[in-house]
């Protein structure tokens, strides 16, 4: 455990020096504030509290931004050590590869948690400031924070796996961008296209829920939208959220990080310095 904490402390320091903490936090706060400001216009006729609407918009934001931040922080984790030539020495220390990965994960998760808490917090302050009654939606805000951290953990693990597979930072960066595009953007587009062509029969009722749960980003969206009863204001793919039981999307959120870290460890074990 002390090995994990020491690695995490060192990684956090490096991320801080490389301005990653600042960049991640700045990005989240900026986007959250923009959304909170923009989202305040069309809410007059919706029968939910102000904060739930903000949470729904933040969910759509987080689906894109959290995986992106996680991949940006993680793609260098193994490949960077290989390129700098620091890996052989590290691996002669009495520390296991799992401990190294968990140490990095802990540091990166801490940064991500800080960034989303400050970002969402800024949006919360804005929502409550203009409508004090909005504070009753605080539960959905807390849920959004911890589920964002879980979503981040999944993509951090995936980033480590790609980093170990590529073994070169440039290659790992390319793979990370590809993964983000496929998992977060193209996947949803493909689903939408299928729904449209299918016209609401077999696919939409049977396969769509499974397809949404199989993608951590969609599971995150479905979980937050259905838990927050904000499905009505969400629309799009989120509209399908009502059909999926809450425990299923929650399970997907918890299982994916474990799966991603297992993958990362398997890829890291194959790296010979």
């Amino acid at each position, binding site marked *: 455990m002390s090995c994990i904490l*020491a690695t995490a402390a060192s990684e956090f320091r490096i991320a801080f020096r490389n301005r990653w903490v600042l960049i991640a936090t700045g990005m989240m706060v900026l986007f959250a504030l923009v959304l909170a400001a923009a989202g305040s216009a069309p809410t007059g006729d919706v029968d939910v509290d102000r904060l739930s609407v903000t949470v729904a918009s933040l969910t759509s934001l987080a689906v894109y931004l959290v995986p992106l931040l996680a991949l940006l922080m993680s793609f260098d984790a193994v490949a960077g050590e290989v390129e700098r030539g*620091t890996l052989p*020495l590290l691996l*002669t*220390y009495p520390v296991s590869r799992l401990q190294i990965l968990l140490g990095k994960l802990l540091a990166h998760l801490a940064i991500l948690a800080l960034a989303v808490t400050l970002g969402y917090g800024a949006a919360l302050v804005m929502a409550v400031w203009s409508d004090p009654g909005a504070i009753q939606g605080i539960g959905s805000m807390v849920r959004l924070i911890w589920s964002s951290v879980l979503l981040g953990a999944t993509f951090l693990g995936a980033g480590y796996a790609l980093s170990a597979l590529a073994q070169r930072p440039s290659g790992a960066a390319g793979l990370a961008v590809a993964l983000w595009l496929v998992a977060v953007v193209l996947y949803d587009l493909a689903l939408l296209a299928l729904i449209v062509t299918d016209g609401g029969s077999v696919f939409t009722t049977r396969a769509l829920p499974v397809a949404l749960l199989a993608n951590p980003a969609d599971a995150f969206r479905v979980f937050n939208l259905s838990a927050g009863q904000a499905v009505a204001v969400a629309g799009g793919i989120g509209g399908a959220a009502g059909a999926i039981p809450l425990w299923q999307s929650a399970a997907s959120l918890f299982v994916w990080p474990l799966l991603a870290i297992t993958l990362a460890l398997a890829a890291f074990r194959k790296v010979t310095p």
Partner: protein
Amino acid sequence: MTPTLTISRLTKCFQSVEALKQVSLALQPGKRAALLGHNGAGKSTMMKIILGLIPFDSGEVSVCGEAPGSAAARMQVAYLPENVAFHPALTGEEQISHYLSLRGENPRIAPQLLARVGLAHAARRRIGTYSKGMRQRVGLAQSLIGRPRLLVLDEPTSGLDPVSRRDFYDLLDGLSADGTAILLSSHVLTEVEARTDSILILSGGQLVAEGTLADLRAQAALPITLLVRPEEGRATSLAAVFPEATIGSDGMLRFSCPQADKLPLLASITALGPEVADLDVIPPSLEDIYSHFSRRDGQ
């Protein structure tokens, strides 16, 4: 005494290339062995196998009685890689503290360790600003953590100035006196000659020579060179007596003779008395011995 490091019949192939062929050696506690060999002779490969960084094909390796790379072995082995690198964003002190924590030691003693290698003044500067020699010292400092029983040093003195090299070997002397076995590779033969107990020469993946410098000198049986300066005007008469000698442009007579013939030759030269002004005996240098062994394989 059980050896700290035992290697028997170790073989390692990279695809079709045999990097190490049937290498066997043992290193006792407190002994300092120098691993010599041309580039690509297998020195770094052997070190990485001892550290458990890469697998091997056949043979046996035992490090402090454990399998190489096992948690128990890694606790007792320290390594200094060739061209050691660290994260440039960390300071020397932070980097050493991290390594101390990984070995379960108190991270607060980092400044003392850095002071031991002469880096106290730069401990709080980022490693990115360090010179190569300073990075090498950070590498050295991390290899001193936790009293290792085996030190594996890959070209440890590269990038160090002569004074730092001497300090470095003084540090090693202290460690070996405490029972640490040291395996180091180097290209600087003169320092290896003076500061190690035995020499191992790898050539083309094979251990072609092993022993103290005196052993190797006897094994190689290289000829000794005698340089004779004749008195003025006696060069031609001397050359007539010793047709086997060659006369250099400087007027010196150069003899090359096997070790066994040295004394009789010396006697016959000194018997000439006033003809000879001066005489030098030049034993084969470490370079000569080294190239003798590493060339045997057609390298």
